[in-house]
């Protein structure tokens, strides 16, 4: 049984290390999904937390200055100014009217500093899978 004791000890050490790494990793990188409205309600509580905010890119709001890209996200009537200064190029799908997901932190000046942007194009041509209505409508045009 002594051998089995060794095995158990080793397994506990390995699994323990991995759990420790995983928990640390989660705390380090966890990001809260918030709507723009919820973000407003959080007020100062939002400062410092990593957040992910979704919304539509307001048409004509994209401004590039140097390596920074500023734009406005809106969801219904609530708006949020976002400044992106990440190293990665913006996704090809990022443009006026696209649905975007900004990942970053809230600044004290009320501007959201994004370090990562994901975007999905809400193309009018694109029928959503399993939902043929838009394509059919298009056929009628």
């Amino acid at each position, binding site marked *: 049984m002594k051998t089995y004791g060794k095995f158990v000890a080793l397994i506990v050490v390995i699994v323990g290390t991995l759990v420790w790494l995983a928990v640390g990793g*989660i705390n380090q990188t966890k990001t809260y999904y918030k709507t723009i409205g919820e973000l407003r309600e959080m007020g100062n509580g939002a400062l410092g937390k990593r957040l992910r905010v979704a919304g539509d890119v307001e048409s004509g709001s994209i401004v590039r200055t140097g390596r920074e890209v500023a734009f406005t996200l809106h969801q219904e009537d609530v708006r949020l100014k976002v400044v992106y200064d990440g190293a990665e190029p913006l996704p090809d799908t990022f443009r006026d009217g696209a649905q975007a997901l900004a990942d970053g932190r809230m600044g004290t000046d009320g501007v959201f500093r994004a370090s990562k942007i994901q975007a999905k194009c809400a193309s009018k041509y694109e029928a959503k899978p399993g939902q043929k209505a838009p394509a059919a409508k298009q056929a009628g045009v």
Partner: protein
Amino acid sequence: MENLGSLALLLAFCLGVYAFLGSVVGGWKRKPFLVLSAQRAVYGTWFLLTVASALLVQALLTSDFRLGYVAAHSNRDMPTLYKFAAWWGGQEGSLLFWSWLLSSYSAVVVFTNRRKHRGMMPFVTAVLMATQVFFLILNAFVVSPFQVLAVGREVTAVPDGNGLNPLLQYWAMAIHPPFLYLGYVGFVVPFAFAMGSLITRQPGDAWIHTTRRWTIVTWMFQSIGILLGAGWAYAVLGWGGYWGWDPVENASLLPWITATAFLHSVMMQEKKGMMKVWNMVLVSLTFWLCIFGTFLTRSGVVSSVHAFAQSPIGKYFVSFLAIVAAFTIYVILDRLDYLKSESRLESVVSRESSFLFNNLILLASCFAVLWGTLFPVISEAVTGEKISVDAPFFNRVNVPVGLFLLFLTGVAPLLAWRRTSVDGLRRNFLWPAAGAVALMIGLAAAGVRHFYALICFGLCLFVAWTIAAEFIKGARAIRARSGQNLIASMVELTHRNTRRYGGYLVHMGIVLMFVGFAGSAFNKDRTIEVNIGDSFKLASYELTIKDLREGDNPNYSWHHAVVGISKGGSSLGVLEPERRFYKSSRQGTSEVAIRRRLNEDLYLNFAGMNDSGSKAVIQAYVFPLVSWIWIGFWVLLFGTLVCLVPNKVRLQYARTEVVGVSETYANVEN
């Protein structure tokens, strides 16, 4: 035509149900005629699915825009290759493709095994067909690819389709999804054999011997699919990475991890009769994860760059996954007595225990990836707040896991079965370990301070050394007897035990890939706004913008930069990144320019024009050692193919009597 296609799918569904029921009843009541008719129904299902697929492909090739699927995923101007690839370019088509591959596999399995394993085969067929029926339900009733566009009751056609997403119009699109699917779908076969064997309580490990090669081929397809995806992301997406821990990437990685664990632990059962329950669990888990991966990719349950929208198929997948889980857990628990181990672990430092730890680590990594991928879903269910984790989490867990696995890769194959003596350890590992330590000290002295990268380089040398030593040792023994030269002896050596030495080659491929992964610790990047004539520096490169052009053609408008590169004053030529904006899909794409070298890649992306339109935004990256990932992949592929070559002399391993490393060989007529 679309009516014929729908009819074919409907009939295939009926035949699939018949094949399933016929096999179960025929196998259970021992009615050979029923079993035979069920087998024929399997061929029939394949034929009907082939007809349906051919009709869809024909509609795509002839641009029949009455079909909603064709209109959404093809257009007139697309090259024929992409028209064909549109078969798996969208939801409905790709599920039909899945179904068709599965039926092809089933037909091959039934045909090649029809005279073998008479007791178990009906249940193997039943498991295959149960999966087939599930996919046929989706094909025929939920997301049919043959839906026509209609206004009122009138069938109409659009003048031109949307075309395939421009990001998908890349040569890899023609082969990346098929390879991944071949891998995903293929694992249903080992699973079916495992279940068939368990249900009928077959004596011995017939299912393992039958599916051994099948498992390796499937694993190879999965590896090709994953690496093609990585190469594609690197060269096309324009974000300069080959792996982003995106949910869909993770979905393809999960079954690969468990399949790798299975490939290793199954050796324990073959040679020692151990870990039988564990192997059942692994093969089931791999199959489950393959279906789960399809679900994750296709249902939009977690958001991803692959951006598939919400769809109605989610609940079907969840039900099927629950059924599979409940069924396998029940069958395994019910037959635990049949899965008793034939020997036990004797020492912590032995081949057995290294397999055990290899499995433990792989599974832990699989679990961590799964957990991270589903974290938004889990956290929302538990706390009501949607919380996601991203790349740093995955790296934090998986980098140490990967390094430990790399270590085992070097150590494990040289450990003896049962227990290893201190003397044996010293003989095998003294020099490689000393070399690794020397390399690490040397690199640290040269200014490399990244901890994980140092460890990784050290381990890579260690593993490569042990593998090379194995080849040389074996080849020398052959040379001493036959007088061939060393290279010929190595070929001879490999041919005598292809699985062992092919396996070493696969390990070598992994080592080379790790060299490439470690290189990412030293990535450099720079984003800069430039005009013609401007120049800037990145690492040791000097980049000068020689020209900026823009233009327009019917398909897309483009911006183009000509960037001169020099290093230490001598010119190295030009790179020409381009940015395109496709008009019909209103989507931009990046045509990155890469200067690939063995030591590092220089990677330029034209990110766009700045707001005033006067300056170009260029992103420049240096990726050290990244080419070794692709080289490692080719070595891995070669090694896997070597594993598939039959041995020159067939080996049979004696069970439990094995002492030390000296396996007992017995020749068996081929």
